[in-house]
């Protein structure tokens, strides 16, 4: 299936990316080339294969020091102690620091073009 410029425009819309006419043409060609290579995966029989969630849970039994109270948190490598820290209040960045890199800010907020008309 050949990728069209129309497909590329739709994806650019989803990605919130403004592309010029030249960029659309070039992108269509590039993505089509990459997708052709990617189609190679159809050769692989993946029936009954689980999608990978974490490289560590895929590593058979390397981490086995499962302590009691374990949360089997696949995303952090199953079998590790809980990867969540205690839910306690602690100092955070603070508003002034957090917005210091904003292109436009005021009264402790990020400022953006108006989205709601009064």
């Amino acid at each position, binding site marked *: 299936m050949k990728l069209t410029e129309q*497909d*590329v425009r739709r*994806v650019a819309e*989803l*990605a*919130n*990316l*403004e*592309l010029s006419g030249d*960029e659309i043409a070039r*992108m269509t060609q*590039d*993505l089509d*080339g*990459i*997708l052709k*290579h*990617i*189609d*190679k*995966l*159809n*050769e*692989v029989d*993946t029936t009954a*294969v*689980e*999608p*990978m*969630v*974490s*490289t*560590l849970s*895929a*590593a*058979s039994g*390397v*981490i086995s*020091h499962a302590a009691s109270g374990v949360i089997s*948190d696949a*995303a*952090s*490598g199953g079998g*590790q*102690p809980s*990867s*969540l820290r205690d839910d306690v209040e602690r100092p955070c*960045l603070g508003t002034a*620091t*957090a*917005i*210091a*890199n*904003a*292109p*436009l800010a005021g009264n402790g907020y*990020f400022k*953006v*073009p108006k*989205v709601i008309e009064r």
Partner: protein
Amino acid sequence: MSLKEHSIASIRAGLLAKKFTAAELAIEALEHAQKENPKTNAYLTFSSERALEAAREVDRKIAAGEYPGALAGVPIAIKDVIVTRGVRTTCASRLLEHYIPPYDATAVERVERAGGVILGKTNCDEFAMGSSNENSAFGPVRNPVAPDRVPGGSSGGSAAAVAQGTAVLALGSDTGGSVRQPASFCGVTGVTPTYGRVSRYGLTAFASSLDHVGPLARSVRDAATLLQVIAGRDEMDATSAFAPVEDYAAALDGNVRGLKIGLPREYFDQLSSETGELIYGAVKVLESLGCEVREVTLPHTSYAIATYYIIATAEASSNLARYDGVRYTRRADLGPGDTLADMYRKTRGEGFGAECKRRIMLGTYVLSAGYYDAYYIKAQKVRTLIARDFAQAFAEVDVMVAPVSPFPAFKLGEKVDDPVAMYLSDIFTITGDLAGIPCMSVPCGETADGLPVGLQILARHFDETTMFRVADAYENASNV
């Protein structure tokens, strides 16, 4: 003063013998690095003030008889995708040209706590996306060994700084080979630790399930020492591992007799003949040290690139969504009628370079309705098979050795117009990232043109120790 003759040990010895102070060394190193930088464009920013402050603290500790840390006074360069409090961090992107992070990455904090002296931030491919460092918004890096050639990527500036002698150590990041390949192209040592071995807190996210912070150095011992400093559980990264950090440097006893080394058959099919000869030469050296060499097979290797470019771009399209003109310094100029959506689109359209756009688009495409199962889930399944290949091979051998790249450093501009060719050049490094295993590049000689070639060593999850032992034994034997 060039840092080429310096190591962690020589600096420590010099400091303790009062041959120089850490502050003197930092000043000389900064002067030299600034003078040399136009030759390679390795550094984007120098952090002179912060370097001097860190160096003075080392001098104070030594004067007071306190332990100055494992990296006392050692000048180090940090890839510019790793955040540094108060020091500009651009990710080599126009979008972040003026971004000053409010916090330090965990790896950076640990380097300084160990007495490391951060000289500055190094150039790379934009958001670490590339294999040649030609995707930097601030110009490419030149290979210090051959200035008409690329240093590799994406950690090209880090590798070039270490090779050029404008840093003793560097931190890079590796998602598909971005530490090992530039290390190989520039003739230095580069390490991709086990996924989760080093905290990713403060590493600007590219593909979170594949991103690693990794050390670069001029010797295996220095790389091992730096990894030891930055490794270990960090509560700020939920995927960082609890497994205890071993004393890597202490394990380097030169004895590798009886270790079983696998040569993955699929990695030796498509080598340029010079690279192949050097790799086979290195295998002979390991045999002469008493290693048992045998062939192993990783049957899904040829699917790795396709798998990677689905998973990595899918994650990237999500991670890079945050650069939208609201929080991170740059916003496109807007007309009076422009909406919030226009602001996003214009900011991103003018801010990202061509390669980032390509990857955002591909990632958005493979995640979009109707394609998610066919591409993304399919790739995650093949990733399982690739990881299984490694698990099966590691049931037979202790480590594997292989090339890092099919060819040595190529010429600037040679591959920029063919993204698929550029992607395919990462075939030998991408598999290790997909499986999450530790792997490294150690120099194994030069081609007739004098271009460095790296030997890749791959090990089991969390077995950096064996990987370093093999690399160190090889390095010592080949230096004779």
